């Protein structure tokens, strides 16, 4: 059983997953923010590996990625920082990023090193499912990592089932066809989540894109197993001098 499976065994609703970009706002802030997220009651952490050309992301995450890169964050640097983090951080952690930096690092080495430091799963939105089935999936599994695919309201029922079958840990439901950080119509999102629920998928579903506070989390989380907050959290830690305190404050406001 993976750490992610354990989480969903124990908690089937209102799971809160928070995304932020490694190396943002400063090169050495990553572990402190992860710790603060755990302390504030976040169930799962999605750690973004910054990339120069993040196609699926909106301006907030792109900007944080560029700053993180300027700060000197790389995959190698991140793994170095993450060494030993499992001594203090017990919530599941997934890495999210784009294929190009991972390919340069070496896909197998990336999976091996991620697993070795204690990462639980991967989200690589531009890895084609066909390639995952034919080659990369076996490497991911060999190193005991979960792999999470994205589905959108435009994804056909047949394809949702296929992507659910390829995923482990959870399935990432993008709330509408859009980049991150855009405003949403929640009636449509709820209808879509109800549709996903009717498919009786094997994985838990977390919904992301457009979830920014207690109200929006509360509006959609009941129709899935929980939700993911990204851009709004990054904005929250951009403002202040003390990202750990900003983290505590932001998460408490969502959960209380």
């Amino acid at each position: 059983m993976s750490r992610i499976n354990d989480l969903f065994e124990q908690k089937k609703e209102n799971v809160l997953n928070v995304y932020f970009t490694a190396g943002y706002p400063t090169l050495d802030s990553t572990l402190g923010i992860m710790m603060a997220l755990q302390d504030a009651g976040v169930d799962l952490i999605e750690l973004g590996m910054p990339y120069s050309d993040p196609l699926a992301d909106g301006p907030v995450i792109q900007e944080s990625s560029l700053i993180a890169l300027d700060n000197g964050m790389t995959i190698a640097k991140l793994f170095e920082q993450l060494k030993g983090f499992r001594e203090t951080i017990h919530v599941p952690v997934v890495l999210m990023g784009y294929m190009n930096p991972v390919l340069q690092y070496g896909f197998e080495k990336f999976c091996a090193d991620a697993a070795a430091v204690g990462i639980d799963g991967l989200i690589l939105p531009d890895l084609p499912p066909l390639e995952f089935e034919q080659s990369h999936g076996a490497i991911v599994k060999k190193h005991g990592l979960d792999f999470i695919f994205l589905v959108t309201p435009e994804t056909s029922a047949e394809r949702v089932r296929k992507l659910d079958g390829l995923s482990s840990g959870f399935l990432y439901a993008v709330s509408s066809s859009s980049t991150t950080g855009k405003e949403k119509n929640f009636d449509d999102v709820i209808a879509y989540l109800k549709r996903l629920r009717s498919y009786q998928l094997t994985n838990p579903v977390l919904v992301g894109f457009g979830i920014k506070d207690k109200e929006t989390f509360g509006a959609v989380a009941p129709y899935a197993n929980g939700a993911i907050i990204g851009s709004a959290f990054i904005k929250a830690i951009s403002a202040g001098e003390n990202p750990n305190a900003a983290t505590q404050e932001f998460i408490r406001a969502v959960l209380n």
Partner: protein
Amino acid sequence: MITSYSKPSEQGYYGDFGGAYIPEMLYKNVEHLRQQYLSISNDPLFQQEFHALLKDYVGRPTPLFLAERLSERFGSTIYLKREDLCHTGAHKINNTIGQILLAQRLGKKRIIAETGAGQHGVATATVCALKGIECIVYMGEKDIQRQAPNVARMKMLGAKVVPATSGSKTLKDATNEAIRDWINNPTDTHYIIGSVVGPHPYPDMVSRFQSVISQEMRIQLLEKTGTELPTRVIACVGGGSNAAGAFYHFLDEPTVEIVAVEAAGHGVNTGMSAATTQLGVPGILHGSKSIVMQTPDGQVVEPHSISAGLDYPGIGPMHAHLYTSGRAKFMSATDEEALKWAFEISRVEGIIPALETAHAFAVLDQLGMKQEDVSVICLSGRGDKDLGTYMNAMNEQ
């Protein structure tokens, strides 16, 4: 299995390069296009409308011109394929005509495009005006400043020009913004990519629309030289759309030498260059696997070229395959050489070429051309848009 250098596999691979590395948010649009593009574009009625517009609106066939004084200088025979005479001033419109007809048949109501130098933006704005379809062009903030005349043309044609303010504020970032727009508008919008880049089927689709260039060359060469096949074909390569069109019908003719000329900027090893095959390694950019200029950590780097149209850190997957397989010879020309040749061609042949195109001429003295050789250069665009740069160069002389 690849049986042809010009045609990819069903999944869009040219050798190891190509494919569709896209987030799920783009899947439906790209897959729909993949399923439809061949049946739509091979339909006789589509072909009829496409070729009628190429003839009556674009002004095709473009002439194949024997450049006598240039030929004399090299003691050889050199023809120029005059894409600069196309409506809007470059080959770019061959593709936008094809894609606007495709977009209409797909029922799309809104067109988006990216542009670097502005030539593709103008060509897209033009066909949108022709068909009465809304047009949004993403253009790097920096390019908007250095290509003001083309920005004005797009606006006059009724397009909305949106500045890309992220990253380096050039073509790469304009492409990112256009892709994001497509993600956010998944049903009514068609994205007209301007080069042979992007996820499958774009490289193949754009190559096919541009292949009219080499199709005409074969007919014209037969008329003028008695044989359809030249000794070599030369074209400049940024993303590589004019080169793809000029090479297309010669790629599977092993006797024809294929010469691609990249922009070396200040010099290949100066850190201010856009010579992708020399400086890049295999990677993924804008949805396809190709050769990409990047750091050892896989971050895409900012290229440099004096010509905005070649200022791109990648290259189409077909060209990446032509390079690694050795089918094409890849050369490069610096900013300075391109400028010098822009003036040479202006004064020797009375044709002011685009800066992009001028790169293709700069390698002529390195090709060892023999007297009996017949070389064809794709004169991809005219130099009106570069007059500012040319005027500065004249003032410095």
